[in-house]
């Protein structure tokens, strides 16, 4: 379970001070599928980064499975990234020098989990429908394929919480739907998913929608409600 308690995040000082998150509180239960939506600059990506420990909060607390992670040292954050939280980025962020399979292997490499690593990674590539592209480098893959590799990579460490920042932002609608189905499948398999998007069509697939504006939560809708 994830809890965000009164989190604020500001950038810069004095006149250049920008408030990205303004006293946000949010609770995400295990197995939930939350979409954070809002216009550009509303703070949704910042919120995601704060949840994943990629960025420090200015005030407030982030608690993951009963442990405060907002004030963790770098070395302890490594542990969180290896065991608890995985990311899927809009820009895929695959390493260009590695093949699809090797990119999926990468998190296991850093964990030092070498036993059966290739088998695990191959299975995940099968799951995202890319087993035939395993030996291709990212520049030989389409955007949708790259994103599916990134999803396989996010799954390889069996992290329970998957954070996705506009995962369909760079692909066409059809491909985007395929990717979204993968997220739904992941959610059915028990992963908790928090996804940032400004695409309301995608938001409809979620169990819960959190709408941000100017760094604050302006609306919260659970699936089935007709609020949006």
């Amino acid at each position, binding site marked *: 379970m994830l809890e965000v308690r009164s989190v604020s995040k500001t950038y810069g000082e004095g006149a250049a001070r920008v408030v990205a998150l303004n006293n946000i509180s949010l609770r995400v239960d295990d197995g939930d599928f939350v979409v954070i939506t809002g216009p550009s600059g509303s703070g949704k990506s910042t919120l995601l*980064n704060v949840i994943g420990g*990629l*960025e420090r909060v200015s005030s407030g607390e982030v608690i993951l499975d009963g442990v405060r992670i907002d004030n963790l040292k*770098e*070395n302890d954050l*490594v542990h969180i*990234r*290896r065991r608890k939280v*995985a*990311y899927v*980025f809009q*820009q895929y*962020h*695959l*390493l*260009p*020098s*590695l093949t699809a399979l*090797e990119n999926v*292997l*990468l*998190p*296991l*490499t*850093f*964990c030092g989990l*070498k036993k059966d*690593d290739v088998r695990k990674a191959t299975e995940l590539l099968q799951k995202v429908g890319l087993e035939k592209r395993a030996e291709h480098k990212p520049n030989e893959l389409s955007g949708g394929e790259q994103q599916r590799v990134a999803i396989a*990579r996010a799954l390889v*460490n069996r992290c329970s919480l998957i954070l996705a920042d506009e995962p369909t932002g760079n692909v066409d609608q059809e491909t985007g739907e395929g990717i979204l189905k993968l997220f739904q499948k992941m959610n059915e398999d028990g992963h908790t998913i928090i996804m940032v998007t400004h695409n309301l069509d995608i938001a409809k697939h979620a169990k819960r929608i959190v709408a941000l504006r100017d760094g604050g939560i302006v609306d919260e809708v659970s699936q089935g409600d007709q609020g949006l």
Partner: protein
Amino acid sequence: MKIYQVTVKDIRRRRRRALYTALGVAIGIAAFIAVLTIARAGEERIYREMDKYGPNLMVMPAIHDVDLQLGDLTLGTLAVGDNYIAEDKLLEIRQITDGAIREALGIAGDEDIATIAPKLYITTAVKGTAVMVVGFEPEQERLIKSWWTISDGRYPEQQDEAILGARASAALDVDLGDNISIKEQEVTVVGILDETGSNDDYQVFVPLATVQRAFEKEGLISSADIRALCSSCPVESIADLVNDAIPGVRAVAVKQIAQTEMNLMAKVNRFMLALAGITLVVGSFGVVNTMMSSVHQRVKDIGIMKAVGASRLQIVTMFLYEALVVGLMGGILGYIAGTFLSYVIGPLIYEDLAVSYVLQYFLPALALAILVAVMASVYPAFRASKVSVADSLRSL
């Protein structure tokens, strides 16, 4: 997959960049290798020249000149002491000499090391002309006087065979195969020496035992030339040891003319080494530079790796692996380039220098290159490990 494999794959993708970085190391290493190779060739040449000057040590009978004085009146000098050394003292001299050499070189064993060539000088009449007959050990003499060449014939193999200096042969009108009598001993001339420009040209060389027997000097010699096997052996201290230990014997270290040349060369070499050191330092700054820009270029990759669970230590490790590869490449390139360079500029620095590559420098060159590359990468690697995930991924 292992972490180093990630680095290797990355280097493969950016081959050219890694090569540039390696060149920074290679230039410094090449300068070092070139200087060392040239210096070694120069030293070898001087050692060869030293060899031409003959023995390192001469052992002679200790003769004291005593001034004879009566009040204020000087009556002249009197030489006191034997004109000969007992042959069995050579054994003691050998023990001292070989012992000192072993100590200097740090080796063990009990086989003979130094070459000792005893000689017995007698002036006598041969065919009515006064000549210097030298009793010698052909094998030992040949080792000491490496410049000797026989123009005609061969070295003596039997006790009744002799060789003549070129001038002696002409003066005595003796040719190959002629018999001459040394006192009452008949010997056959089996070889004539090429001219050497030294006293040897005027002398008749007969095996030592034959001369000793003919002149009833059994067990005696006039002097002995000693050459230590190594050019760097401590001849002065060996001379001191012999003088202290064996009475009636005077050992003299033959001052090498080449010593001055050696000193000059050492100075030039120090200067060149300093230059090579500066080149290496400059080169390593180049490596720092390219490694830093490598960090900047790969901020995104570092961010990705940290996002999927790489620790700071792992990021540092990856950069040090890269440094290792760069160092290896730089070391190999540097060794090859430096050797090549020494062939080109060696003869320009020391005239007619015969340069030859020195394989023993390869591993030290590799080690130095890796050390430089790793040292130069420590700071960039540290910087890389501090890359913030959010910043690195946002900036794109």
